[in-house]
């Protein structure tokens, strides 16, 4: 019945509705890469001030949900100190001697 009505009124309204939904989606997707690039750049800059890491060991992921979206930043940090000659960070990474796969310990204050 609905289909019959559509044919009678012409297919233009359907075309219009499909385009509106599709383009809303595509415009969103188009702006996303730019946002991700900016986020990546700025997040890495801040973290890079305090710890050193390999730029290609960084994973940034955005999950779009209906009500909530999540942004996950996964950075692999080697268990070592910053190279010398760089201003000391607030918290300092100390190599985990016991377990290589464990999370690095952050010690406050000077060693």
């Amino acid at each position, binding site marked *: 019945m609905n289909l019959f009505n559509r044919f009678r009124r012409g297919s*233009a309204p359907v075309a219009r509705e499909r385009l509106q939904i599709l383009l809303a989606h595509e415009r969103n997707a188009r702006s996303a890469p730019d946002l991700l690039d900016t986020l990546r750049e700025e997040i890495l800059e801040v973290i890079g001030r305090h710890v050193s890491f390999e730029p290609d060991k960084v994973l940034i992921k955005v999950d779009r949900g209906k009500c909530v979206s999540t942004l996950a930043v996964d950075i692999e940090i080697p268990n070592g100190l910053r190279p010398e000659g760089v201003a000391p960070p607030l918290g300092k990474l100390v190599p985990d001697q016991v377990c290589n796969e464990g999370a690095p310990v952050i010690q406050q204050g000077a060693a």
Partner: protein
Amino acid sequence: MSDEKSARVLVVTSGKGGVGKTTSTAALGAALADQGDKVVVIDFDVGLRNLDLVLGAERRVVFDLINVIHGVAKLPQALIRDKRLENLYLLPASQTRDKEALTEDGVAKVIAELRTKFDWIVCDSPAGIERGATLAMRHADAAIIVTNPEVSSVRDSDRIIGLLDSKTEKAERGERVDKHLLINRYHPWRAARGEMLSIDDVLEILSIPLLGIIPESEEVLRASNLGSPVTINAASSAPARAYFDATRRLKGEEIPMQIPSESRGLLNKLFGRKAA
């Protein structure tokens, strides 16, 4: 070429192929030249040039855009002056298969040189979103987006609008490329019956200002067959009048938009008879 000019650069673009970029470039270029402005139309469709054919200059091509970029020929040697309109010039594309031949620096130099000699530079973009299309829009001050009232054309136009807002020189300087929508191959009676997207539908979806509505017409096909833009070949036809109005709007004139309708005009009566 005596007095120094400062051209406005237009790109005629669409994303989708076959919507009427080349016929529109020819028709608009000829209309602007007919009004006394000095115009050059440039074909950016390297490997698949056709603007020469639509303008009836296909047998006069000696040098092309790529030759100029590579220093094989000087710009004035490659420019072909129209035989009907002394103010209209064509810079043809090359038929080479090497798309890399079109370089960003080369195009920038050619456009810079043409700017001082013409009032309008009209760049006919190839279809797609690759190198040719992005280089055609690169230096544009304004863009004419040719759209057919049909889903795939509207979708691709939206994509191109996105590129105009990010990949052009103006966009990179934080400025905006003026965007104008030219709806081509419009069938008024189909839109009236709800069989085709209406002007309002397309405008609402793309939300850029309307430059003109070119009705579907056999005069456009006839003009291409003869190698003479519709604005020269059938200057009083409905599509030609729509192109002339579009050029006046480009120059900032306020002209009421003629929406071809079922009830008015000889053209529509003819179409109506055919449809019956």
